[in-house]
């Protein structure tokens, strides 16, 4: 190995090391999206009440992750992470809406049951008096 080739190799190694050092290890927007994604993924109510919206949010989050892992432009990662975060929030809101609708229906059914019970009681009372 000649001194010249050794010099070239040294420069190449230095550039590689410097290049690796300059690549940021995390992306704050992607990390935020990851945190929200994990929380949403573990939330059974979201999975039950907003499955399609959650799936769409997951797809977008995975795109953001892929963009980060393939060293795509940070702006692309930020953009996709933002879309993922918003879609997770949408899934959450849709689940909240569906859950409230279930609660409203239960309250209405309970009221109807009360009325039916009261009506049946009244009927029994009337029959007993006859």
């Amino acid at each position, binding site marked *: 190995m000649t001194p010249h080739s050794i010099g070239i190799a040294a420069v190449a190694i230095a550039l590689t090391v410097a290049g690796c050092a300059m690549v940021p290890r995390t992306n704050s*927007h992607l990390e*935020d999206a990851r945190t929200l994604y994990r929380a949403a993924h573990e939330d059974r109510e979201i999975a039950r009440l907003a499955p399609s919206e959650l799936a769409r949010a997951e797809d977008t989050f995975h795109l953001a992750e892929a963009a980060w892992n393939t060293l795509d*432009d*940070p*702006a692309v990662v*930020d*953009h996709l*992470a*933002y*879309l993922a*975060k*918003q*879609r997770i*929030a*949408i899934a959450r*809101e*849709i689940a*909240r*809406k*569906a859950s*409230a*609708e279930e*609660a*409203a229906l239960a*309250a*209405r059914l*309970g*009221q109807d049951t*009360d*009325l039916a*019970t*009261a009506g049946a009681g009244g009927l029994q*009372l009337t029959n007993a008096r006859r």
Partner: protein
Amino acid sequence: MNPLPALPGMTAAPAATPRAAALASILGAALTFGCASYPVPELQLAASQAAVGNAAAHAAPSGLHDLALAREKMGLARHLASSALPQEARWLAEQAEVDAQLAQAKVLAANAVAEAVRWQRLASARGARLVQASAARNPGEAP
């Protein structure tokens, strides 16, 4: 400088400097992608405009912040689309679409929660009246 990193943060902040942040982001995007060639995202702009229209039709306090954000991004997206920056226009239009969808979802959820509370109160009141009526009919029994 990242082209659009400030935009995501705009949702967390109470719309204090959205315009300045967006303009700075767009400038960064223009510097980064100015030489790239993309078609004008007509379909995305139309879809985003429709989403903003839907959200505006359901406008209520719980969704106003996200709706304002969506409208601002939509305006910037149109401006960029006509300024030969279609890639940045597409990004902003995509963000406007999800912002508008979130605004609408928040309003619909808030309405559903209010309706649920109303029915639960009605049910509670009805239950209390039934207990009182039952106690009146059978004064010797505990409620």
